[in-house]
């Protein structure tokens, strides 16, 4: 039998693992194999990974991130599962998937006791196939009948979304999609005028669906039009007719790719930085041969193609994607080439950092990450040279690698083939991020010039303001819970809606940490999620952007909180640390500030008793979504009003702390701190530090 093509290396390695029954035991290797896998390998991977028992993988690798997914839809949608499993595995995420009743999405979503909700999904994919709406239209029909049926269906979907919000675990997301309009329907109308009317009303139906989307609040809508317009056929009439499987495998594969990026984005795992090669990537020519003046990104046909690619890159940067250069060239030549081409869309100050030299690109990418204070896996690397890509794949595990080639007119499409930077919603912070990172670089060089770190800090004129988050800051706080990995006491992820609910709960102290110094205003750089519980302040999570670490802000936040708690007449502050993949460094944060480690129940920041709205620390569905240990407990306790029960059970590895407020640590001398637990203005204290004495309402 002819194999259609010779198996590429990742495919062969994957087949070997499967043949030896080692997929679960060597699951981390699967991610690496799939990083560079072709379409056939991904297809095969889905077939062999989907039947794998997630428990078996977790038994070998308890740290594997897990997501609980329910799949439902109109028609047969089981074919989506292998594709989705492979796409998630490609991101290192293990799927616990449940396919619900074929074609029964109405019952699945409307009935709170359905098997779908029993699965406790963090994400529910409701696949609307191309027969959606048409299954209720009777022959003979006019555009008007289709319009009525479409509007009725959209309303039903809106109601189902509300029911999903009520019955799925808190923080879960329902994913709908736009419905492709098939030619075999449009051309059943012979009148061109009516056909145009049908096309118009169908687009309105899809537009209305898209307008319902609120990805930060539990409803996402995937737009399939860009997928079908790129040449993916939507329907398979034979399998549709004979097996109710109306979507083509191709469409479901693309759907799975988009859905996997959506899931990554919801989990706060969007990539943060795009690292670009120069020769053959951003410009035409070879710098070492053509010289700084000889490279082009305008003026010639090929040059203009590079210019167009640069514009795409600039567009990404405008939304908070940090840009960096990693080039094998002399640093001075790179500097000149970037500076001496005012006609290039990308200017030197568009790049947060530039690494040029003759070391390996893997080394270069790691240097970029280090300079920007990012984890190396937060990076996307794009290069037209296979050797360099392999070097980064092998040397920077977890970084995404974009394969460009010798055709610059295809660079944009290749860069955007995967939604590496997809995020539920943008905040003002995103748009300002490149400027802030540039300032960070300025601080770093200023620090390098300063003989001693303490003297440097004193020159910063650092001001930190901590007070209840304002309405417009809630989305930013949610984003911090999603994006902050290192300085994150618990790793709990929250949507904007969940942050809002917490802030509205009685006794809540949901605080934004803002920082500014002589280099500029940093905006909201951290969050304190706390709550007054009797005479105690319970800190449920504390987060700070990596951008501000090393400047004493963390000390100021903790010292300020403790002082504010004492001023408010409280007797203790409680906090908790839960291990995640990246937060080992903050385990000692509380002890370093005079907290003692406590054992026994009730010492941690438990959830408000009987509260169904304010999530306890382990209560949000997102809480466990990317953490092996919290995956189960998080979702279980997140259902209904069970939050309080989950509070007493500790997550594995969790450490609880208590500060008796007798001896308080000082606020670092170089920081001017203003802190309020509530909205009322604070009174200045003798040392110039203002700490709000007002306790939040305990109603």
């Amino acid at each position, binding site marked *: *039998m*002819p*194999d*259609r093509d010779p198996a590429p290396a990742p495919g062969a390695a994957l087949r070997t693992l*499967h043949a030896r029954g080692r997929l679960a035991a060597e699951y981390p290797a699967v991610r690496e194999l799939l990083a560079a896998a072709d379409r*056939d390998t991904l*297809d*095969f991977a889905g*077939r*062999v990974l989907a*039947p794998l028992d997630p428990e078996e993988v977790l038994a070998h690798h308890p740290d594997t991130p897990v997501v609980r997914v329910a799949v439902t839809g109109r028609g*047969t949608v*089981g*074919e989506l*599962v*292998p594709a989705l499993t492979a796409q998630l595995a490609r991101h290192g995420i293990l799927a616990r998937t449940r396919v619900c009743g074929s074609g029964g999405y109405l019952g699945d979503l409307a009935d709170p006791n359905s098997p779908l909700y029993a699965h406790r999904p963090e994400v529910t994919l409701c696949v609307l196939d191309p027969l959606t709406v048409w299954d209720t239209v009777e022959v003979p029909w006019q555009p008007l009948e289709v319009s009525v049926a479409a509007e009725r269906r959209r309303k039903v979907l809106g109601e189902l979304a509300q029911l999903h919000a009520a019955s799925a675990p808190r923080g879960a997301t329902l994913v709908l999609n736009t419905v492709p309009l098939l030619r075999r329907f449009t051309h059943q109308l012979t009148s061109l005028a009516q056909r145009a009317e049908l096309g118009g009303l169908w687009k309105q139906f899809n537009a209305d669906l898209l307008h319902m989307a609120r990805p930060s609040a539990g409803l996402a809508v995937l737009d399939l039009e860009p997928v079908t317009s790129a040449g993916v056929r939507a329907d398979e009439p*034979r*399998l549709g007719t*004979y*097996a109710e*499987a109306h979507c083509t*495998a191709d469409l479901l594969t693309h759907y799975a790719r988009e859905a996997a990026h959506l899931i990554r984005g919801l989990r706060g795992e969007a990539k943060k930085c795009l690292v670009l090669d120069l020769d053959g990537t951003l410009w035409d020519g070879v710098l070492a041969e053509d010289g700084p003046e000889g490279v082009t990104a305008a003026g010639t046909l090929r040059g203009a193609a590079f210019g167009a690619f640069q514009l795409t890159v600039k567009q990404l940067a405008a939304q908070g994607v940090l840009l960096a250069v990693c080039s094998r060239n002399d640093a001075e030549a790179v500097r000149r080439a970037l500076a001496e081409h005012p006609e290039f869309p990308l200017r030197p100050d568009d790049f947060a950092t530039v690494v040029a030299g003759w070391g390996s690109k893997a080394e270069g990418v790691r240097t970029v990450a280090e300079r920007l204070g990012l984890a190396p896996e937060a990076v996307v690397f794009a290069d037209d040279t296979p050797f360099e890509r392999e070097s980064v794949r092998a040397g920077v595990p977890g970084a995404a690698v974009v394969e460009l080639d010798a055709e610059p007119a295809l660079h944009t499409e290749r860069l955007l083939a995967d939604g590496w930077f997809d995020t539920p919603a943008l905040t003002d912070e995103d748009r300002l991020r490149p400027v802030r990172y540039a300032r960070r670089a300025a601080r770093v060089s200023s620090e390098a010039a300063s003989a001693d770190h303490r003297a440097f800090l004193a020159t910063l004129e650092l001001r930190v303001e901590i007070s209840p988050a304002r309405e417009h800051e809630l989305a930013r706080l949610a984003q911090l819970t999603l994006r902050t990995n290192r300085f994150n006491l618990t790793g709990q992820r929250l949507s904007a809606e969940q942050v809002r609910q917490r802030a509205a709960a009685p006794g809540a102290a949901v605080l934004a940490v803002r920082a500014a110094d002589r280099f500029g205003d940093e905006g909201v750089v951290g969050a304190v999620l706390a709550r007054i519980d009797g005479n105690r302040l319970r800190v449920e999570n504390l987060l700070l952007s990596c951008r501000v670490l090393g400047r004493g802000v963390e000390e100021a936040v903790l010292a300020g909180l403790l002082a504010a708690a004492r001023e408010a007449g409280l007797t203790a502050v409680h906090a908790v640390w839960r291990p995640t993949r990246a937060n080992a460094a903050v385990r000692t944060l509380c002890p370093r500030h005079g907290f003692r480690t406590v054992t026994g129940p009730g010492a941690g920041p438990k959830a408000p008793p009987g509260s169904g709205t304010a999530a306890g620390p382990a209560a949000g569905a997102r809480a466990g979504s990317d953490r092996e240990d919290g995956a189960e407990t998080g979702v279980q306790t997140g259902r209904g009003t069970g939050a309080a029960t989950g509070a007493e059970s500790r997550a594995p590895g969790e450490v609880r702390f208590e500060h008796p407020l007798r001896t308080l640590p000082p606020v670092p001398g170089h920081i001017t701190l203003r802190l309020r637990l509530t909205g009322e203005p604070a009174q200045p204290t003798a040392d110039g530090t203002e700490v709000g004495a007002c306790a939040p309402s305990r109603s």
Partner: protein
Amino acid sequence: MRTVEELIELANAHLGTALAPADAERELTELAGWDSVHLLRLIGLLEQVLDRPVPVDAVLQARSLRDIWSAAVTA
């Protein structure tokens, strides 16, 4: 594709199944690890290998791998 054994090889190579030639006559419902999703994918694979359409209705009604092979190859 000349024999049902080649069909079995095709399934094993692309679906990750561990079917043996002896499984050719068994009911599909009795085959370990076989499900309806496999059958849908197998139709696509058969059409790629044969480079022509197969009678989808007949393949979907097949009760054994030999039935599938007969419907697809001898059609």
